[in-house]
């Protein structure tokens, strides 16, 4: 095989490692060889931990982050545990970027509702930072659901958004702790309080699949058209190139045609159990 084999990763050095919650860390990666192209928000890379495995992880930073590739990882299995445990100065492998990210053109001049469940906020974080960068001139709502208060990733950033005043931001948890003063429930509960122009609003949704279904249906019920709802899907992926077949969803390769889809495309596919 040749060096330009797309299955061979580029080594990246861990420049910084920030714990976000108990089992979530953010890694700042800098290339140790010719870097991969700049990723778009919503795209993902395949991250490799030596001898353990390779898994798809969304880009949680902005393209312009001074050459730093940023990923936020929840340790759920062997590979994610090894990746999130990588020490500063050590290397991981990176392939990508892959897939189609958020369609940000669609947000031009539109109110935006961001709905994130759990670590679903990771791929949405660059979008939020992008949209919130300047004076927004639109309604921007950022709704986050988490299992518990200590499972809220990027809590500091969310608090920062809250303080700005021009962003409607809210966090809801499944199970409160004694110190929790915020709402308790599911993230769709928050939609009721959002004030946007539903006729031209765009919704960006990422989280566990059942949560995305509920959120999309609730958004539709509010009047947000399915073609203006974008969801980011998760499937098994071994290549990222549309060749291994693991991520097939009907006619789509989630790795290549997604992971971000319009709900109008995704709903019929996800509507079939076991598809």
């Amino acid at each position, binding site marked *: 095989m040749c060096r330009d084999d797309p299955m*061979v990763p580029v080594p990246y050095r861990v420049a910084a490692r920030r714990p976000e919650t108990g089992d979530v860390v953010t890694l700042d990666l800098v290339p140790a060889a010719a870097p991969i192209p700049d990723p778009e928000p919503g795209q993902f890379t395949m991250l490799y931990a030596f*001898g*353990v495995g*390779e898994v798809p992880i969304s880009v949680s930073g902005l393209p312009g982050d001074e050459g730093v590739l940023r990923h936020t990882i929840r340790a759920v299995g062997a590979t994610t545990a090894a990746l999130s445990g990588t020490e500063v100065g050590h290397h991981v492998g990176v392939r990508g970027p892959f897939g189609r990210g958020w369609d940000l053109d669609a947000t031009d001049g539109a109110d935006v509702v961001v709905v994130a469940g759990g670590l679903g906020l990771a791929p949405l974080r660059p979008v939020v930072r992008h949209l919130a960068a300047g004076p927004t001139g639109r309604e921007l709502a950022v709704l986050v659901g988490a299992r518990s208060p200590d499972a809220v990733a990027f809590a500091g950033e969310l608090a920062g958004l809250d303080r700005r005043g021009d962003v409607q931001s809210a966090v809801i948890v499944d199970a409160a702790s004694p110190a929790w003063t915020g709402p308790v429930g599911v993230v769709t509960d928050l939609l009721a309080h959002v004030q946007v122009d539903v006729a031209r609003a765009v919704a960006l949704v990422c989280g566990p699949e059942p949560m995305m279904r509920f959120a999309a249906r609730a958004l539709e019920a509010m009047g947000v058209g399915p073609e203006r709802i974008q969801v980011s899907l998760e499937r098994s992926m071994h290549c990222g190139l549309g*060749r291994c077949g693991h991520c097939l969803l009907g006619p789509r390769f989630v790795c290549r045609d997604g992971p971000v889809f319009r709900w109008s495309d995704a709903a019929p596919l996800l509507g079939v159990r076991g598809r």
Partner: protein
Amino acid sequence: MLRHLAARGYQLIGPTVRDGAIVHAPIDGIEDLPAGWGDVQSAGSYRLRRRGDGALFGHAVGPESARRFLTPPTRTLWSAIRTPDGFEVEVEVAAQQQPPVALIGLRPCDLAAIAVQDRTLAGPRPDPAYVEARRRSFVVAVSCSDPASTCFCTSTGTGPTVVGGHDLALAELLHPRHRFLVDVGTDAGADVLEAIPHSSPSSEDLEAVAAAGDAAVAAIRRRLDPRARELTAAMEHPRWDDVAARCLSCGSCTLVCPTCFCTSVVDTTDLAGARAARVQRWESCFALDHSFVHGGSVRVDVRSRYRQWLTHKLATWWEQFGISGCVGCGRCIAWCPAGIDLTAEVAAIVQDHQQEVDA
């Protein structure tokens, strides 16, 4: 001709009798071809038969296709050694040193399958190993004279006569004397033919070949309903439950299929953890692991896995690659240990569906 190809450095891959079937495997020369052997195939059954003549290609497709030789069942993608602060990739070059293959006796459906693989594996984001193996391969195709009962290439438009995709194509004639008519498909083919003695065909030869082709067409009875493309409109058809009760979920169909391309990549390490490798191997969409995301598989029951296979192969493949994933070779019918016949499943599903649409 085989000697010439071998002399040019090609590894010869051709049909040969092994373990009760005619399989494509490395051969030394013409003496390994299945002279006088034919086959009898039906759903879930394959038997060799003595033909009583000296035909070298008087058989239909066996369990192996070109797939094994263009994209091997197991391949180390790359390996790496541990360094104090990470790892260093060692790129495998072994595969490149493999000799190029001359694929002898591929059938029209096999050529069609290669054309499909050219789209699935050598599309916009090609697999360099496949592209390389394909580029260096040489194809000697043979038109079919003795299709099996499992063949249905006439309804997929992929046979039984070679129309393209070959370097050289043969038609075998047994009467009045054993001879081959050759069609040159490429310059490389012409070059090889140049080196061996040959003469121009007579008009009787050409007629005989045409007649054999017509006879082969007439012999093919099985057919894939062209409405197979509409399968995705019948995702909840009760027939899926019916076939799920019969399906062993063993994955044999996907692994004999010449166009299936699913692979998995697994990690291996030595005991010391000093060396790691990533190994790619053929996978089946019938495996639970295939659709595994953290927490569980998407396709947990046989029904959804069989349906995934069939709808992908026959329907969604069109949307992805502009072509069907099925080339009508019938391998999945013959080599299914439970004898499930996809043409029958499709017919049962689309007929009802059509009735619904009509009503």
